[in-house]
């Protein structure tokens, strides 16, 4: 954990150990680990002199932060109004069925985490699904399996290499 500590410390240092940068620091940590490890919150609390309860308060208040490790691939289903009227919830249900998890959960093999977002601002091409930063436009129930297969395939490809 020593080297990990150093990494978290470097994120804090990047923001001059300023209290006001708490959210930005947590964003950096999450960008690195995909979630906020408990230990990192303790380090942040100590280094910035902010009580741990307040650090956890911020980490749980904002939707973008996750306190649980996330899977290798992050599937985000947009549930904005435009996506909603075009069938977004049905797409989400199909992902839940295919992956066998509920929203916010990670598959047992740690490959996929399923999340939702309030709006990505791509309303014209809804329903929108984002996987690892790649946008999938006009998603249909039938496309869900194709999308998942694509990422599962990449997985196999990477493993055989």
């Amino acid at each position: 954990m020593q080297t990990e500590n150093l990494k978290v410390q470097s994120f804090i240092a990047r923001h001059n150990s300023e209290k006001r940068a708490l959210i930005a620091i947590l964003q950096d940590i999450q960008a690195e680990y995909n979630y906020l490890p408990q230990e990192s919150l303790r380090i942040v609390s100590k280094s910035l002199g902010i009580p741990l309860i307040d650090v956890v308060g911020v980490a749980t208040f904002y939707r973008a932060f996750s306190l649980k490790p996330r899977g290798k691939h992050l599937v985000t289903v947009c549930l904005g109004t435009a996506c909603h009227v075009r069938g977004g919830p049905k797409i989400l249900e199909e992902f839940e069925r295919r992956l066998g998890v509920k929203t916010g959960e990670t598959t047992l093999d740690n490959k996929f985490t399923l999340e939702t977002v309030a709006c990505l601002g791509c309303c014209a091409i809804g329903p929108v699904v984002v996987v690892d930063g790649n946008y999938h436009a006009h998603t249909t129930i039938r496309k869900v399996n194709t999308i998942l297969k694509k990422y599962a395939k990449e997985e196999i490809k990477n493993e055989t290499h």
Partner: protein
Amino acid sequence: MRRIKKIKSLKELEAVIEKETELRKSDTRAVLTVSAGTCGQARGSLKVIDSLKTAIKKGNLEDKVKIRVTGCHGFCEAEPNIIIHPHDLFYQKVDPKNGKDIIDQTILKNKVIDSLLFVDPNTGEKAAQESEISFYKKQKRLVLGDNALIDPTDIFDYLSIGGYRSLLKVLETMTPEEVIPAVKKSGLRGRGGAGFPTGTKWEIARKVKGDIKYIICNADEGDPGAYMDRSLLEGNPHRVLEGMIIGAFAIGATEGYVYVRDEYPLAVKNITLAINQARKIGLLGKKILGTKLNFDIHIAKGAGAFVCGEETALIASIEGRVGEPRQRPPFPAIKGLWGKPTTINNVETWGNVPIIIQKGAEWYSQIGTDGSKGTKIFSLVGKINNTGLVEVPMGITLREIIFDIGGGIPGEKAFKAVQTGGPSGGCLPAEMLDLPIDYESLTKAGSIMGSGGMIVMDEKTCMVDVAKYFLNFLRDESCGKCVSCREGTQRMWEIVKNISEGYGKEGDLELLEELAKIVKDASLCGLGQTASNPVLSTLRYFRDEYEAHIKEKRCPAGVCINLIRYVVIPEKCTGCLACKNACPQDAIRGVIRGVHLIEQNKCIKCGACLEACKFEAVETQREEAIRIVEGGTEK
């Protein structure tokens, strides 16, 4: 991009603008303008760009044609699209395969590629030029128009269309005391939702005594269904910066923040780049252009909380705290960020400022209605043919936007409602289509202008479901500070959810109305005060739909899954197997060319069959046997 050299005086800036404008004019190459905002990229515009580049390189045509990669052009339905100059052609839904053709046919042989032209969904007519397309005809693109002219990652491109000329004018010829009356006279009001007069806000901030003053650009575009701020930050970030620098000069602010949603990665990237370039060229920093103006801008990224669009919550978030709103007064103009006087304006508001300075307050105030001046950008989305960002003069009617610009509803379905203002707004029915849009008229009709989301709904949209959607959103996003909002949105959601599931009972609607009123009256911030609007407006205009759910256990639109079942209409079924193959539950029986049947006991009502059927042979029908349970469902 070329190397940026620091500009040290106003004269020098003028010379640079002139030089860049001249350079642009003297470049006689054909220009392929490719839209590559988030939507465009999602539809493959980057691959289109690659294919064009390859074709240009192969033909050694670098001196004949150039590619300009821009942000969003607003016509999202037609993404990725290319505007070609000087031919003045508009190609839509371009595929990477078309790259070579565009170069070979259009650029080299001057031939129009027919298959890439826009086809009007109603008349079937093709349009070769942007100006011929019904989507653009009634628009007045003051703020958004420049998106199609510039590469947002290159400050010189912005300078070459006369960018930063308004700032030059302000610094050269005006005092702060002259800028504020100009903004006041223009009639500009906040584009983020509440519509507070911008000039008045600035005046208050100017008059407050303080050693440090802040200005903030609110780019926490939280309304689901609105994305004009993203489009502006992605496509024309320098316009927003120019507005902010002018604001800083007028108010006397030395530091600024752009608070932008983390969900908009491209917007974050482009505005960050723009700030760095502006700093390098000397438009931000100490003693800007040799004047006394000191001003710099920082980025603060949101972390996914809708309530942070509220100004006091936004300030708390920049300070690194939980985004909970606080009591006003004191207003941020008096006591804001770190207790200092702070002026917060929305992205679109800042984007309007340079236009007002350039064209004059008088000119600007002639656009719009008595109380609402200028243009407003709406995101026209949902069940509409021409989806996209539309910028129209205030006072235009909903009908003009939805039917003339938007091209009406797809699939010959009937218009049912338009939702404006996001979760704080309301749903307006067909009777309101001739309503001229401005801040007051929308409020009177039970909705609000909001940030400009406009979601069109057709006969297949259930209004109870829509109300449930917004309540679910709001109960989720309520920060929890006020009991009325935290518990009220939760209870309203439970009631509407029960109704949608067939468990509604007599008295529910009256209880909803009572609760809605209390939430409205007893909540601290805008989120809670307007949280009842989606419920109240749907109750006002679509009460019969609620009653059908409660009394007849029927969902007229065929959406609420407890009240419907999917069936195959034997007369329409061709036996193509499409639905059978799509069904995840193996709930469909049938052989090829034989009529199919959905086994109701296996069906999970996922809707895959309806989506798969090309012959409209799958329909939703009323579920006959509804179990009515006293007391409703659990959470």
